[in-house]
């Protein structure tokens, strides 16, 4: 990471933590300030490059939490301590810290919210955490959240059975937060956005789109509507910005730019 974030720089992986099979955290040296919600591009030399949110910054190390999903992420979770990894960034616009936030995370979306949680805590800002996963093994840093987060799982193996958005509905009925922060799969984000609008609570949502550059020039990550770039104006977009977006929930665009299944 540098002041010319599009430069490639390689770092030796300083540490690897395995949370569960196919779910790891990688740590690399920090060389630039990072705001929760921002992301980095990770290059496995000779393989490919993908964007990943930062899940924490501590003791001079940047933590990135990866879930094995496809060919690239399956290689990434196999990276070992001392391996070289290309790291570019940080890119994008992160979350804006505020009092009385409600952090709603789904699956690997818990990653950027965890960083946000720590930054809010450091500033003494009150907040409430709602995390949902498919099943218990999928929660990163379970220990860190025992007692502090309200947990939901599809199969009931952790916390309450059901979707985290059910938790959100319940929370909103009880007390209005000042802001909703959310990260997770797009259908979840849409449900959160709908609830936030219904309750007139400002929301900051972290989105994912296929990316080529990560720094605003290739056009690969642009959302339909006003052409917001997920890599520059996002990945965190507010409920207001999202009024300008017309392709939420549509099949994503593949690497050619064509909308898949369209």
């Amino acid at each position, binding site marked *: 990471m540098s002041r010319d974030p599009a*430069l490639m720089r390689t770092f030796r992986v300083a540490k690897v933590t395995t949370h569960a099979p196919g779910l790891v955290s990688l740590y690399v040296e920090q060389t630039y300030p990072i705001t929760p919600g921002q992301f980095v591009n990770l290059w496995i030399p000779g*393989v490919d*490059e993908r964007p990943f949110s930062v899940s924490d910054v501590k003791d001079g190390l940047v933590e990135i939490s990866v879930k094995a999903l496809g060919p690239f992420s399956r290689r990434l979770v196999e990276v070992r301590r001392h391996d070289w990894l*290309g790291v570019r960034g940080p890119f994008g616009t992160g979350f804006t810290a505020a009092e009385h936030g409600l952090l709603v995370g789904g699956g690997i979306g818990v990653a950027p919210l965890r960083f946000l949680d720590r930054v809010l805590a450091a500033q003494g800002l009150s907040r409430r955490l709602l995390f949902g996963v498919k099943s218990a093994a999928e929660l990163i840093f379970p220990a860190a959240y025992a007692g502090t987060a309200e947990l939901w799982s599809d199969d009931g193996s952790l916390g309450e059975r059901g979707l985290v958005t059910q938790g959100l509905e319940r929370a909103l009925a009880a007390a209005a937060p000042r802001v909703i922060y959310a990260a997770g799969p797009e259908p979840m984000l849409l449900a959160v956005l709908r609830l936030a609008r219904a309750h007139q609570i400002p929301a900051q949502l972290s989105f994912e789109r296929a990316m080529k550059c990560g720094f*605003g*020039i290739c056009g690969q990550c642009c*959302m339909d509507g006003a*052409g917001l770039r997920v890599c520059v104006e996002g990945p965190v977009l507010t409920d207001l910005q999202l009024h300008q977006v017309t392709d939420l929930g549509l099949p994503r665009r593949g690497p050619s730019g064509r909308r898949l299944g369209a």
Partner: protein
Amino acid sequence: MPHPTLVTDLCGVRLENPLVLASGILGVTASSLLRVANSGAGAVTTKSFSVDERPGHKGPTILSFGAGLINAVGLSNPGVDAAVAEIRAYKAISRTPIVASIFGRTVDEFGAVAERAAAAHPDLIEVNVSCPNVAAELGTPFEADPATLAAVTRKVKAAARSVPVSVKLSTNFGFLARAAQAAADAGADLLTAINTVGPGIVIDTNVRRPVLANVTGGVSGRAILPIAVRAVFEISRAVRIPIIGTGGVASAEDALQMLMAGATAVGIGSAVYDHGVEVFAAVGRGLTAYLEREGLDRLDSIRGAAHVA
């Protein structure tokens, strides 16, 4: 003095200002092109598209090297049908002129994609015969041989019907004036110069391998401004058709160099990395300020002005 105008006539197409979004930058979707148009571009260019869909190269595809960018995106594009749909969608919501950038693997493919592109009525068609990033697959760029260049130009001209055609050149094969002449003689209405330079390679010395997945990539941005200005200067002496001067422009000062070298319009691409999409409005304001300071009312007064005896 009346307020100076930046309005530019490009082969009969009226641009509010001479600044054209270069191909491959924010050019994938209608929305993204609209965004740039609304940010102050005088015209926008699509990412180059071909008959068939192409995913492009694996990552990394675009890097900074400290003095500019280097890229090998690999001409990823959704294929002509999807691209044409984006052009139509764009035209439904924007009045800023749009340039359809096309390429093919054969002379005939250039014709085929031009014909289908023309059906969407873009304001211009730009023929990318100079991309250095697909050599492994498509071989030496078509521009390297004047006869092939002429054949592609004729084919596209015939297919484009009334849509003016620009041929996009690079400086990577020398003899630029000859290539420009070949394209002009074959009927090109205008030229775009230049495509990326090189190509180049960036090696990561820790992992001891080229960083771009494609190994080589084209150099753009600040590094190439003088080369692009020279190309425009040289071409404008060789042929009489308009030029979209592209390469390294990031400020009004840079754009003025292009215009004074003989460009009619000015392409901007990589500067979006350093300066954001706001670069179009900023450069436009700078051009107006220059005209005001010099007491001029239009850019015609300075076009080609650097060709002193």
